[in-house]
């Protein structure tokens, strides 16, 4: 009988707190979104499962010595996981569309306004009782507007580790929701005839240009923004491995096996931050709201900038391209393509949208570097 009581007192049923059950529900919701709805399954599945593991009473996954504890401390607290992911993204990224049309960098820059506007918004939220965001917290929340998961995690781990779970979940869920959030904003800010604009075919790009590009980006970062070199440096390394063509083995590993392995542990470790005591706070709600606002503003300023460039160029640029200025590669570019096709079923904008899209990755890395340099 005593043994039975001891067994019962160790069981999950006897030890659940309401908060843990709720967070397991959140984990299950993330799993549902990943499996049934196909929203960013590569990330939401491990994050959702991590959330369930982290909230098991007496499970010990997140206690000192547990698997998730180590995954978090080794990979995220040090900033290593997001940087390895960034190297893989660099190896996956073809800058050809951007090199062929460098002006698209301006769209990637304009879309970063969402980040800085949200910085203001997060501080403004302090007027509401219950919110106390420091400038560092606000910056880490604002970077959600860059729509770049690894950048958001990297910055949050440096500036506001306490908010990391909420920020990572917000960043990745909004990236998954790009096809729902962006189109209404894009349609609101453009006219039917603007959406129909067809663009000239992109010129071809030589191999030398592609090899020089990452080196040039790195050089500029070294000169002007050393704080961004961890992010940009790893990104450029991945891209140089891809474009140089002499280390195909390394490039393949970076864009396949390595990024996959890191993604599993990154997802689990982020999920482990979804424990009831850390996540169920009023700040989380604020972060989710601010993240959506940041994202919306970024999309809007990108489109407005593209409209301006379209006017100045005499209608050669389709304003929809601006929406791809938020990173979220390649989801945002696909959304631009889809909305463009709705207006004109012969208008394929995908390749053109990849330019501002990869420019957005650079733009958000630069913005993160600025925030790190000023507040870090």
């Amino acid at each position, binding site marked *: 009988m005593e043994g039975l009581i001891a067994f019962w007192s160790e069981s999950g049923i006897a030890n659940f707190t309401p908060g843990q059950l709720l967070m397991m529900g959140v984990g299950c919701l993330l799993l549902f979104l990943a499996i049934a709805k196909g929203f960013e399954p590569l990330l939401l599945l491990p994050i959702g499962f991590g959330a369930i593991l982290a909230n098991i009473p007496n499970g010990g996954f997140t206690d000192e010595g547990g698997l998730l504890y180590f995954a978090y401390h080794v990979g995220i607290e040090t900033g290593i996981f997001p940087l390895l992911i960034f190297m893989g993204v660099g190896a996956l990224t073809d800058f050809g569309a951007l090199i062929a049309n*460098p002006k698209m960098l301006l769209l990637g820059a304009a879309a970063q306004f969402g980040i800085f506007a949200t*910085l203001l918004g997060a501080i403004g939220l302090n007027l509401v009782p219950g919110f106390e965001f420091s400038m560092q917290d606000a910056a880490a929340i604002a970077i959600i507007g860059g729509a770049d998961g690894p950048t958001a995690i990297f910055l949050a781990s440096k500036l506001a580790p306490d908010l990391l779970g909420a920020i990572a979940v917000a960043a990745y869920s909004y990236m998954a929701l790009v096809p729902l959030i962006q189109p209404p904003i894009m349609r609101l800010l453009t006219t039917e005839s603007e959406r129909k604009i067809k663009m000239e075919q992109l010129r071809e790009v030589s191999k030398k*240009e592609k090899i020089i590009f990452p080196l*040039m980006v790195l050089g500029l970062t070294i000169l002007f923004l050393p704080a961004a070199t961890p992010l940009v440096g790893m990104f450029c390394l991945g891209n140089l491995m891809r474009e140089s063509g002499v280390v195909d083995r390394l490039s393949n590993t970076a864009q396949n096996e390595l990024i996959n392995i890191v993604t599993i542990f990154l997802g689990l470790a982020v999920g482990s931050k979804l424990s009831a005591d850390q996540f169920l706070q009023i700040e989380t709600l604020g972060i989710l709201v601010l993240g959506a606002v940041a994202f919306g503003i970024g999309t809007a300023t990108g489109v407005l900038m593209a409209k301006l460039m379209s006017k100045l160029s005499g209608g050669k640029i389709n304003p929809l391209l601006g929406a791809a200025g938020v990173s979220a590669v390649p989801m945002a570019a696909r959304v631009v393509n889809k909305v463009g096709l709705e207006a004109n079923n012969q208008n394929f904008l995908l390749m053109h949208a990849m330019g501002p899209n990869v420019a957005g990755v650079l733009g958000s890395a630069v913005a993160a570097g600025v925030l790190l340099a000023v507040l870090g």
Partner: protein
Amino acid sequence: METISEQLTDALGIMILGMSLVFVFLGILILGMKLVAKKYAPVPQEKATVNARQPAVTKPAVSPLMAAVIASAIHQHRQKA
């Protein structure tokens, strides 16, 4: 309240600084890319001009004189047979 308004001014400052830095950085990058594009101009354009020239040279060379020669050669050959 004062601290919040101070913070807001700080945030506004960071916003202006941040956006201008992002634009300046990417603006310089655009200039750099244009320079690189000038120096290492895309090869396919040169190829296209070469291709355009070749048929222009070969076509007239074949048609007037050679055609007549070939035609007469065939004619002679058939007569022999």
